[in-house]
């Protein structure tokens, strides 16, 4: 039972991280109809930039994540401008290939600056608390709480604020939104910036638990795809539910079955879901 509670909290913390990363991906898909294969590398860069601010510059933890999010938002906007904007009318294979190019580039950048070796980022939040006999580290609790707060703010931003609403408008009807004066181009930039910032928050939160490496985004890239396919491409609540579902499934499988099975479950989810429903679960009206 103690083991179960322990794993439950681990799963919830991981779920928070997955949600934050997956929401960016699902927003990008909703607005630009691009499966951004480079999303995992944005997360990886986010972790390294947080590391840079926290360890090299020496600002407090929260400020480091905030600054890193701003830096990554700029990188996200640049990525949209330089890579995806010129390809907006190209066949879908081209976006994906370009994203692969960007992915290789970002990995090489991280490796050139920080080296290929694993790095450790210690969080100022230490210690743990005992709940029902399970040792839960404060870092994990912080992750869950932060994720909930950020998700709440994000929902408010998209549903209530004028800039956020433009994102939803573009998702629903690109042409119609243009007609009422919403610039798709500006919304695309906003979405990419937001997605990169969210991925950074996720990375900054989880970095003290895991190690940093230029390849840390590779596995995450596929997991977030599994999440948004599970939850429906472009769906915000879907990404949240999918994120927690996958994280819990992963943690439980690696505890009770085997580590390799836990690692593979995301891919099994993709294959199974798409085998049953080729357009993903909860797919909205066919968009073509």
């Amino acid at each position: 039972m103690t083991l179960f509670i322990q794993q439950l909290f681990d799963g919830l913390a991981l779920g928070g991280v997955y949600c934050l990363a997956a929401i960016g991906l699902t927003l990008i898909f909703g607005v630009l109809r691009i499966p951004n294969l480079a999303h995992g590398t944005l997360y990886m860069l986010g972790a390294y930039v947080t590391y840079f601010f926290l360890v090299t510059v020496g600002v407090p933890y929260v400020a480091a994540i905030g600054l890193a999010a701003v830096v990554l938002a700029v990188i996200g906007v640049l990525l949209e401008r330089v890579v995806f904007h010129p390809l907006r009318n190209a066949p879908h294979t081209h976006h994906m290939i370009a994203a692969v190019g960007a992915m290789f580039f970002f990995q090489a950048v991280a490796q050139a600056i920080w080296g290929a070796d694993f790095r450790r980022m210690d969080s100022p939040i230490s210690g743990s608390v005992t709940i029902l006999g399970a040792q839960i580290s404060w870092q994990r609790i912080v992750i869950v709480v932060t994720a909930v707060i950020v998700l709440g703010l994000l929902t408010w931003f998209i549903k209530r604020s004028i800039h956020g609403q433009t994102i939803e408008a573009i998702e629903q009807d690109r042409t119609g939104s243009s007609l009422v004066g919403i610039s798709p181009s500006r919304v695309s930039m906003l979405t990419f910036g937001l997605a990169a910032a969210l991925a950074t928050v996720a990375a900054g939160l989880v970095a003290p638990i895991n190690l940093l490496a230029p390849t840390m985004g590779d596995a995450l890239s596929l997991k977030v795809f599994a999440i948004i396919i599970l939850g429906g491409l472009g769906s915000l609540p879907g990404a949240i539910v999918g994120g927690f579902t996958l994280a819990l499934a992963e943690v439980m499988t690696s505890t009770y079955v085997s580590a390799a099975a836990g690692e593979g479950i995301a891919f099994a989810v993709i294959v199974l879901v798409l085998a049953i429903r080729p357009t993903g679960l909860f797919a909205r009206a066919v968009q073509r």
Partner: protein
Amino acid sequence: MTTSTFSPQRLGTLLVALALLLAPLTLGGQEYVLRVLTVGATYAIAVYGMNLILGLTGQLSLAHGGFFGIGVYIVGLLTTDYDWAFWPSLLVAVVVTALGGFVSGVVALRTREEYFAIFTMAMGFIIFLVISRWESVTHAHSGVSGVKFPEGFGLLDFSEPIVMYYLVLLFLLGAAYVTHAVRRSGIGRTLVAIRTSEDLARSIGINVGLNKQLAFAASTTFAGLAGGLFAAVQGFVGPSAASIDLTFEMLMFILVGGLGTVLGPVVGTFIVLFLFEFFQDFEAYRFLVLGPIIVALVIFAPRGIVGYLNAFVGKLRSRGTGAGTGSGGPPEHRSSDTATDVKETL
């Protein structure tokens, strides 16, 4: 095209073939260079497979490296742990990847466009995970060493690197010929129709599902064959031979060479491998340069080297006869829109 007419494409093919045939001789028997060329030729065979599914049919399969890895490991494990001879192992690799492609295609090809890419990426990762974790069978990260060379016929001894090179080259020639034959055939045109518009193709009575499935199976077969040869060339193989990075590298090869063209895969593979060697001192940093090159290619030059040469030749020819394989289409189609550009590549 009749056989008697001289065509620039024919000249190009001849030049590439000559360059590949003579390369080992002119390089003064340097072992290392020969090895790079041989490995490059095995990759090129796999890239021809990718060309069939991505270049002709327009489906981005990211499981390609995985199927290459299956080929590598079937030959690698059968010739070492099970002490099989090389040729039957290669045959098994080809049959398994062909069947694997056909069967998995049933499910994979129900998905479309980006879903297909994501689906195949997951497939590729599962293959990689199985190979890199299934310790008792694949030896996981310790890899497989001592893969056998192909058994020679008479005077041919494939443990000679140069003989092995020509053997791989022979298979490469076969892959290029198959691509050429497919492109000229009705099947090739069917695949291009699917690439252009799946719905339109279906509406004129094309069995989209079956044709895509055949193209996918053909592509995985090429990957398996290439993998099998790769195992023999390398002698030692590890899980990285099945990694998704390999798929991405192949994607770059074909993009540089030219999607859907006959010579694109071989030209692209060797040019990019040459660049890799050139940047070798920088190891992983090579992607600081190569990453932006991929992006720039997709944005500014999606046709690749051979694609552009074809279009150029086609333009020259259309002035005379108005027909030609490399026709770039009427001028109004060659506007700034990359989408139209690509569809005219064939």
